[in-house]
């Protein structure tokens, strides 16, 4: 029932690659790596729901985009905002939204859950894209990156590309470690019980709706953390960040990597990102090929990349 960890060595190699990358990669690729690390964190948060709790959310982008909007709204036009205040505000907003949406959603299951999470995300999407206060469909700019200072002492400077890169990497690692810990703790064990057999878990005495709601809030908050990083990274947020296409993509990333593992979503994010980038270079109709790729993924690789890795050592014995 523990999260099946890929060998420690592989984790270390991946970490070393990511840590060394800004020293060897060009500017374009370092920027891409940033985008993909953020996507990986976003996908990890969704995997807590899809892979570990058995809740297929199709509105996860709502929390991702909302955090970006909060950052844009609290950043003044002429000066930066404190990193700590900004983080607190963004995460609180995502958590609160997840609490409200989750409260409605976890009482349902299966297809209802899918549709309801989608509908709520759309509600937020239209709310942000139609009110002029939020910049309408053009979105909002984040004029300054937050400042990480204690008193007058600048702890680190997020405007420095190197510093920002390691800040994002450290956040991704922290999210990964947090999920690993939660999943090994009693809470995570109950979640997995719910995923495998919710009725039985409830009969054993666990108020399963409450556990699902807490899982939903944790996942929403982590998605908010990813959305916060994205808004800091690009300096921009638009309704597109919480569109249902964004929810679809992150769901696809989780499946591509392998749900129910934590390394899967990270692998999925990088595979997807490199594929998208490659396709965009080759054809303007890359979305068509992305669609074909998704269809092929479902038909031929339901376990995702993690499924391939798990099967590989057995050498085709099955």
């Amino acid at each position, binding site marked *: 029932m523990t999260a099946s960890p890929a060998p420690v060595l592989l984790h270390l190699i991946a970490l070393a690659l990511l840590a060394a990358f800004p020293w060897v990669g060009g500017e374009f690729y370092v920027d891409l790596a940033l985008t993909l690390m953020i996507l990986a964190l976003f996908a990890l948060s969704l995997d807590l729901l899809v892979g570990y709790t058995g809740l297929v959310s199709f509105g996860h982008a709502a929390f991702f985009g909302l955090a970006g909007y909060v950052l844009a709204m609290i950043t003044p036009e002429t000066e930066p905002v404190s990193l700590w205040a900004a983080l607190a505000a963004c995460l609180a907003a995502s958590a609160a939204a997840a609490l409200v949406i989750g409260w409605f959603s976890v009482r349902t299951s299966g297809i209802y859950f899918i549709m309801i999470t989608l509908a709520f995300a759309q509600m937020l999407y*239209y709310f942000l894209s139609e009110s002029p206060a939020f910049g309408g469909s053009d979105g909002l700019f984040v004029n300054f990156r937050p400042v990480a200072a204690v008193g007058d002492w600048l702890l680190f400077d997020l405007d420095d590309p190197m510093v920002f890169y390691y800040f994002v990497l450290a956040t991704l690692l922290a999210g990964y470690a947090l999920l690993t810990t939660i999943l090994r703790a009693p809470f995570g064990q109950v979640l997995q019980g719910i995923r495998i057999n919710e009725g039985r878990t409830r009969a054993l005495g666990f108020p399963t709706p409450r556990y699902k709601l807490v899982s939903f809030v944790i996942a929403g908050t982590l998605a908010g953390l990813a959305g916060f990083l994205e808004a800091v990274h690009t300096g921009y947020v638009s309704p597109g960040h919480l569109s249902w296409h964004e929810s679809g993509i992150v769901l696809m990333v989780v499946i591509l990597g392998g749900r129910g593992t934590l390394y899967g979503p990270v692998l999925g994010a990088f595979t997807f990102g490199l594929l998208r980038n490659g396709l965009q270079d080759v054809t303007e109709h890359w979305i068509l090929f*992305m669609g074909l790729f998704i269809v092929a993924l479902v038909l031929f690789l339901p376990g995702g990349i993690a499924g391939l890795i798990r099967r590989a050592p057995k050498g085709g014995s099955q």
Partner: protein
Amino acid sequence: MDLAQFLVQALNGVQYGLLLFLVASGLTLIFGIMGIINLAHGAFYMIGAYLAYWLVGLTDNLFLAILLGIPIAVAVGLVIERLLIARLYDRDHLDQVLLTYGLILILNETQKILWGSDFHGVPVPEMLAGSVPLTENQAYPVYRLFISAVCLGVAAGMWLVIARTRLGMMIRAGASNREMTSALGINIGRVFAIVFALGVALAAFSGMIGAPVSSVYPGMGDRVLIISFVVVVIGGIGSVKGAFIGALLIGLADTFGRVLVPDFASMVIYALMALVLLWRPQGLFGRAP
């Protein structure tokens, strides 16, 4: 808002609701009977609208375009059903969501390759181009009345099928696939193909008949899909009656929302959905899980 304005908005709301019903009923039937959650359903609405635009350009006649267009849409739908959807019957909802999401990307991009990214209009057929006067300075377009009448006719036809046939009996009973196979004693694959084709025909037809009032543009299926989801959730998944009531509710709520609270118009229907779910989590006519 005076009475005449109210009447105009009410007629608009009913017309929009009835059109939504055609799309949503296909979605709910495909889920109720086949157990498939089909995100690509809205794409068939878009395909219908583009076929109308293309065929009206060729034939100069919307009715002829509809007659020619539906078989084309159904053929596309059947190929997709046989090639892809049929492999999803035993898969979980997650796989269905993902594959049909991929299908949306494919169909949307194919549309752009074939017809480009511009907005297009489809002219209202000449014989239906007039208006009915309501008061001295208020008139109502005949074509919108025509849409409502046709949709009501289709709804009545569906009601007949559901009330009078064995397939309809199964739909009403919410029978599972296996029960249906044994009860109907026929190839379940064929039933599924027929249901899917019917759903596609309904979606494409509403795209076609709605094209003169909604214009034709890329990604137009996405919004219809999501609103149809809201309709289905409100009505209760698998219930055609629920889809009918839900579609009218949404049509009226959306139309009056635009007039009364223009700043939050798009949110009204989602708020309505939240209220219904608060009261009945399984929807108005859904079965308790």
